[in-house]
Every structure is written in C-alpha cells, then in structure tokens.
C-alpha cells in the first residue's frame, strides 16, 4: 500500500553508509525502543544513552543482522543489552523497573482471562521483585547475569527469585482461578 522501503532495504543501505536510510531507521524504531526501555529503567538519561549506543552499534555492524526473524527483534536485543551495559558502567543508579504495578482494572482482568487464561492473574499476584525477574529473563530473554545487572541484584537472587516465581505460577495455575 505504501512505497516506503522496508527495514531490510534500509539496513542494506546503512551498510553502504547511507545516512538518510540510517535516519529513517532511527525515526522508525527509536520511539518504540525508547518506550520499551523506559519500562525497564526509570532513568531517562540512561535510556537515551542506550538508544544512542544501539544505533551506533547498528551503524558499525549493520551486517550483524543475519536475516532471520524480524529486524525489530534484532534491534530490541541490541537495545536491552546496551541498557544493561550502560547500567553496569554507571553503577549505583536505582534502575529497578518499578513497574507501576497498578492492579489490573476489572475490564483488564476479563481481557486477560480471555487472552491468557489464568496466567494474567497469576502474574498479577507475584511480588514486584519476582515480576521484574520474570520480565527480564522470560519476556526479554536476558541471561541471569544480564538480568542481575539490569535489576542491580546478585545473580543468585535472580536465580532464586525466578525459581520461586515459577513455583508460584505453577501452584497458581494448578489451583485454578481463585
């Protein structure tokens, strides 16, 4: 329907050092990457730095994308790791994702139970710490070490929290909706 170049075409152009294509790629992806990163880290400066690092990395190694899957997923993989490494070098910044943790409204509950069965409610009952770990490890696909750096906790805590969270979810699902 539109004649805009797709992401892969843009990435090829970036490999040819095309600044215009690079800019288009930035405008297309910086927004959603930033909002997703800012859900993991409250510090806007760090998110801005991570976005910058991400696109610098893309410029330097546009051929890092091997053509499997979506370019958006590839970009996200770079972005979350850049955020983690920024957190590591900055150190000491309170960066726990601080998910607003608003209890789902009634209509959301309905939506969730339609979409996810009981998982949604089970997740909602987890403590914020456990949810943060689930988010980092299960949803973002980070390693335990990366998650530990993101959340500023020891690796061992990530592992135990993940283990407990899984046990929690399993129990909640076995019990059925309460």
């Amino acid at each position, binding site marked *: 329907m539109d004649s805009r170049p797709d992401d892969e075409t843009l990435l090829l152009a970036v490999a040819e050092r095309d600044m215009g294509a690079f*800019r288009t790629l930035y405008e297309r992806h910086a*927004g959603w990457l930033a*909002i997703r990163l800012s859900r993991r880290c409250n510090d806007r400066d760090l998110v801005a730095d991570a*976005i910058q690092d991400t696109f610098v990395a893309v410029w330097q190694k546009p051929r890092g994308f091997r053509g499997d899957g979506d370019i958006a997923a590839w970009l*996200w993989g770079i972005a979350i790791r850049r955020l983690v490494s920024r957190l590591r070098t900055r150190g000491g910044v309170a960066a726990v994702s601080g998910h607003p943790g608003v209890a789902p409204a009634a209509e959301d509950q309905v939506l*969730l139970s339609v979409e*996810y069965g009981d998982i949604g409610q089970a*997740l909602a009952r987890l403590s914020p710490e456990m949810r943060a770990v689930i988010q980092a490890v299960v949803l973002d696909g980070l390693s335990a070490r990366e998650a530990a750096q993101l959340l500023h906790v020891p690796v061992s805590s990530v592992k135990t929290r993940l283990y407990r969270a899984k046990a929690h979810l399993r129990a909640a699902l076995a019990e059925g909706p309460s």
Partner: protein
Amino acid sequence: MTGWHLDDDMLRRYVERTDSLAEGASAEQHLLSCEPCRARVTAAVTAAAGGTGLSVIDFAAVWDRTRDAVEVPRPSVFERLLRGAGLPAQEARLVAVASAFRGVWLAGVAAVLAFAALAAAFGHARGVWLFLSVAPIVPCLVVASSYDPWMDPALEPELVTPYPMLRLVLLRTIAVLALALPAVLLFGLVVPGETAFAWLLPAVGFVAVVLAASTWVSPLRSAIAVSSAWLAAIWLLAARSGAPEAVLQARTQAGFLALAAASFAIFLVRRRRLHQLRPWR
C-alpha cells in the same frame, strides 16, 4: 499476521505504562512483529515528546548525538586497548596519538628487528653481533620518538594544554615498551643461546638514560647519541675479541641495571625540566 492488533486503549495504556505486566508483555511481543502497530507507538511517543510530561527522551537530541558519534572516526585498535586497560578516553587518545604508534613506523621497526634476528639465526657469530647491536637500542629509539616534539608534531597542541608532562612521557614510555618489548622478545626467540635475552637489561638502561637526558636535550637526539655509543662499543668489542660473551657477563649486566636505576633517579629528580620539551615557550 493474526489480524489482532493493539487497540487504541491498550496502546495508550502501554505508552502511559498503566497496563498490567501480562498485557504489556503481550503488547511487546506483538510489537516485535507488527510494523503498523510499532509505527502507532512511535507516533504516540514522539507526539508526547513534543509537549506533555509524558515525554520519554529527546529524540532529536539523541539523533544528533548518534550522528556525531558515527561520524567521528573510530578509535584505533591500540587506543581501544588502552581504554580496555582502564585509561580514561581522553588520556588514551593522548597516548595513542603519538606517531610512534602508527602502523608504518612499527612495521619498520619490526622489519629491522626481523632482519637482525634472522641474521643471528642463520649467520652465526656475526649475526648474533648484529642482533645484539640492534635489539637493545630499538626500545629507546621508539620511546624517544614517542614524545619527541620534532618527530611528533601532534604533541604540540597537546603540550600547550595543561597536562602533566611527566605523566604523558611515562604513559607513552610504558605503552611503547608494552608494544616493543614483546616484539623484540619474539624475534629474540629465533636467536640461539642466551643472547636472546642478554639485550634486555641494556635496553632498559638505555630507555632510562634517554628519559633522564630529555630533561636537558631533545629525546631523539639523546637516543641517537646513546645508540651511537652502544654501536661503537659493541663493534669495538667485536673487533677485539670476536665473542659476544662480554655483554652477557653478570658484571656487565649489573652495570646496566645500575645505569638504569641511576638514570631513572635523575629523571625523577629533574622531572620539572621536562618542560624544555616545549621549545616554543
């Protein structure tokens, strides 16, 4: 495509971060594979960045920084190595900018050494002499050229900036030795016998002499003087006895160690005179 898309409410909740974890997770999973929804999120985010307190980051400013970052040349391998060793970016640039660290210069030094080492490996006694005359003076020549203002015009603007001269000279000396010593050692491995290492103490001694001398005269000039003295001495020795053992004797080696210690002490005492490297002052 599943035909399922973020509806406007969900999108708003996602951007405002008022959704639940599960809903957010499903939105994120969907966004990875759905370009139209990504475009809507981006539009919502950039629109928010224009005004209200919802703004995430300043996208225009981040773009400017990103463009600046990719437009400056990448630091050299050596500079990145220095940074990896824990040197702050600015100092790494200051150390690495010396022309002594440019590929051509290093390749020339390596070629001379390789030639000498090969001569030693195949040319027996004479070759060993050749190696012994070249190897000890290479480090001090490279060190001198790494901070000599004549060799290295790049030093000029750096030295007008208030940066401690002592630190700069020592950093460059250490960096250059970290590069040159392993190279000479490597070539020394093809040299038969203990000769392969006999040059080490003389080399250290000469570097210290050059450091001390550069509180009086230009480093390159002192390095050339030291080298000439060494060459004259070793050729005199070769003409007289014809055996390289003299340099290997414990007494001679101890002498070189004493020379190194004394010169370095002089260098430290007179370190303020390093300012004479700024001839335009």
